[in-house]
């Protein structure tokens, strides 16, 4: 068993997304950065989507009552096991009585803490992922609190390390490959240029629902009465106030604001690591070029993560 001593800022159980339910209003959700979830699960011998913890900005403090294997991936932390440094890119074997303090995330926004066998929580609507807004999935549909008790399904596994070429280091300045969207042409010519050349600032309002972008404003020709249409993680909406909003994994499934850009699939996992103060650039790409780059990225990762096609 794993006892939550301190929950951290916002720690939830996340797994794979919920697919095929957007027409019912259910967002895909799941790990905001699925690639990092997969890297953590890989080190403890799990399937990429075994239920794990997603910690935000400050990680939890956990006490173990049973031997098991743990791994941390994603945002950079200086984690401690019983007060000693741990290797972020390797399996950590813990003993009953050990305390793991994940600590502050210094680069990136989220880290993933995976446990051998995965956390024992039921699937709801096809996934174990927590949906905070609708309060279902994960641990009782909510973020962890002190004194919660978690159960890892597995025991100690053979330790391994992430090969150097697959170690990710989140950056505070991120380029996202992005395509045009149905309402891109509602942007004025100047705004179109600044959307794709500007250095956008991640606002304080950045969560799993979405990220408000600051630094500049856009001019969009809109009467505020666009008929609601499908939106997805990575859609850039532009409300009448001109401050673009980059939708996250838990965003609403339809929206009535102009869709001015769409982050291409290959870079959507990067949205989960954006934190207030980071810089974002939208690099314009043609759809087929983005698709080809996706294939290349999947081919690169397949050697370490055989299920990469389902991950990014």
């Amino acid at each position, binding site marked *: 068993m794993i006892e939550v001593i301190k929950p951290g800022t916002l720690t939830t159980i996340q797994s794979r997304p919920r697919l095929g339910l957007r027409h019912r209003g259910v967002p895909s959700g799941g790990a905001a950065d699925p690639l990092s979830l997969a890297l953590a699960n890989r080190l403890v011998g799990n399937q990429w989507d075994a239920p794990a913890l997603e910690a935000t900005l400050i990680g939890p403090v956990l006490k173990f009552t049973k031997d098991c294997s743990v791994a941390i991936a994603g945002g950079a932390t200086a984690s401690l096991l019983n007060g000693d440094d741990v290797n972020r890119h390797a399996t950590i074997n813990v003993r009953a009585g050990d305390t793991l303090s994940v600590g502050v995330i210094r680069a990136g926004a989220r880290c993933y803490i995976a446990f051998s066998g995965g956390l024992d929580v039921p699937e709801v*609507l096809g996934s174990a992922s927590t*949906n905070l807004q609708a309060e279902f999935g994960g641990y009782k549909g909510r973020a962890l609190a002190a004194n919660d008790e978690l159960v890892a399904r597995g025991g100690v596994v053979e330790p391994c390390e992430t090969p150097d070429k697959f170690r990710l280091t989140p950056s505070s300045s991120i380029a996202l490959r992005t*395509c045009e969207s*149905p309402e891109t042409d509602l942007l004025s010519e100047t705004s179109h240029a600044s959307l794709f050349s500007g250095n956008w600032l991640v606002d304080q309002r950045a969560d799993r629902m979405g990220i408000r972008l600051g630094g500049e404003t856009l001019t969009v020709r809109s009467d505020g009465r666009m008929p609601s*249409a*499908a939106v997805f993680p*990575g859609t850039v909406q532009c409300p009448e106030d001109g401050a673009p909003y980059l939708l996250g994994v838990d965003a609403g*499934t339809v929206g009535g604001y102009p869709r001015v850009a769409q982050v291409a699939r290959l870079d959507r996992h990067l949205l989960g690591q954006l934190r207030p103060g980071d810089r974002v650039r939208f690099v314009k790409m043609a759809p087929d070029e983005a698709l080809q780059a996706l294939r290349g990225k999947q081919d690169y990762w397949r050697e370490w993560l055989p299920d990469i096609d389902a991950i990014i």
Partner: protein
Amino acid sequence: MLTRIADDQFSIDAESAPFAQALADHLRVSGAWLDVVPGINSVVVQFDAGRTKADDAERLIDVAYADFEYRPTDDGPLIEIPVRYGGEDGPDLEPLCADLGISKTEFIEQHTGQAYPVEMVGFTPGFAFIGGLPTSLHAPRRSAPRQQVPAGSVAVADSRTGLYALASPGGWNLVGRTDMTLFDPHGEDPFPISPGMRVRFVAR
């Protein structure tokens, strides 16, 4: 018309919300899509770009569209939704009636006076867009959305009534509230209200 959105989505124009729903249902069984999401006048198909070529996805959509025939229906199952109008449950009812130049009683009589089609579910789990609001009850959204609208709120904007299945931010005019469960993730049927159904509001 078919429009490409980014690397993994296609948008198809639809003449109306019920058309979009029917087309989405038809497309959903025509291929292994990740999601098929109808809007008010469009349907967006998300395909698995890592495994399916864009050309193949486009061809599948074209073929499915070619044998799609839209038959409007108005005989979907009818369900009654009990609503407490006005007061704390519908704080916008009074100012809205003042704007519309009618009494609260007249508003309630008109709102409960007919069955309405469920046009779309979306935004948050179970949020229902219900069409057919009489012109005499049309009003724009609030200029400033509320940070938090309680679950079960019944609200109007333009030609629609909206049902807030969950507590969420929202800009529609709140006219009442229902105790009916509109989304139950653990229930046998998590989504008691679906497009194609008809609803009648009953004042409590």
